């Protein structure tokens, strides 16, 4: 069970995860992550672009690696592109496994790689000005945790 999608409009992560969970048989553990556009700051809009010839392919390769590393029964990754407002979901990842450790590690692994190693580019509109966002040093450090183990 494997659902990897890039979506161009709003999506409902709760519904996606619910449908995915129902389709999984005999899964003792389901871990999920939803990332949204943060509000409360000066950001009034966020835009994610991608390069289609690489994006889906890259996410499939990431899923392959997650299945190889963790004892998974299913993996869902949905990543939105386009213009979004604060509060709107950007990404949903969900992993089903026999035991909790595999499921938890898998969503952690996928998020670390989607954040700084997948073909997305993010910019924020603050006031009248667009700013390109690069991964924080923590994001790179988070991703490098996995390199040591492979």
């Amino acid at each position, binding site marked *: 069970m494997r659902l990897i999608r890039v979506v161009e409009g709003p999506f409902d992560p709760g519904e996606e995860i619910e449908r995915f969970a129902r389709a999984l048989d005999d899964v003792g553990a389901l871990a999920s992550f939803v*990332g949204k556009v943060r509000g409360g700051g000066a950001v009034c809009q966020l835009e*994610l*672009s991608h*390069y289609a*010839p*690489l994006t889906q*392919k890259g996410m499939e390769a990431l899923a392959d690696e997650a299945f190889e590393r963790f004892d998974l029964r299913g993996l869902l990754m949905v*990543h939105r592109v386009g213009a979004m407002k604060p509060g709107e979901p*950007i*990404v949903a990842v969900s992993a089903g496994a026999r035991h909790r450790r595999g499921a938890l590690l898998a969503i952690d692994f996928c*998020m670390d790689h*989607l*954040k*700084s*190693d*997948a*073909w*997305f*580019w*993010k*910019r924020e509109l603050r006031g009248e000005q*667009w700013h*390109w*966002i*690069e*991964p924080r040093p923590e994001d790179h450090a988070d991703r490098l945790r996995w390199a040591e183990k492979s």
Partner: protein
Amino acid sequence: MPVRLVFLGKLADLAGGGERELDAATGWGALLTTLEPELAAEVACERVRVAVNGTLVADKRTLTLADGDELAFLPPVSGG
């Protein structure tokens, strides 16, 4: 058939648009001379990767392009 250049992320701002066409197929060095100096310096950076027809290129300096190719310039990413 021309070669298509695709600029992603902030490279699109710098290029003044996400896409461009080049009249003739060419290698990496010749390609850089067709770009504005600031843009050329940026895409020459180690942090910028390139893909030809959806396949990442290991060493962009050894690149050769054929008619109809799509060359994408990929700056550091940021998703999630």
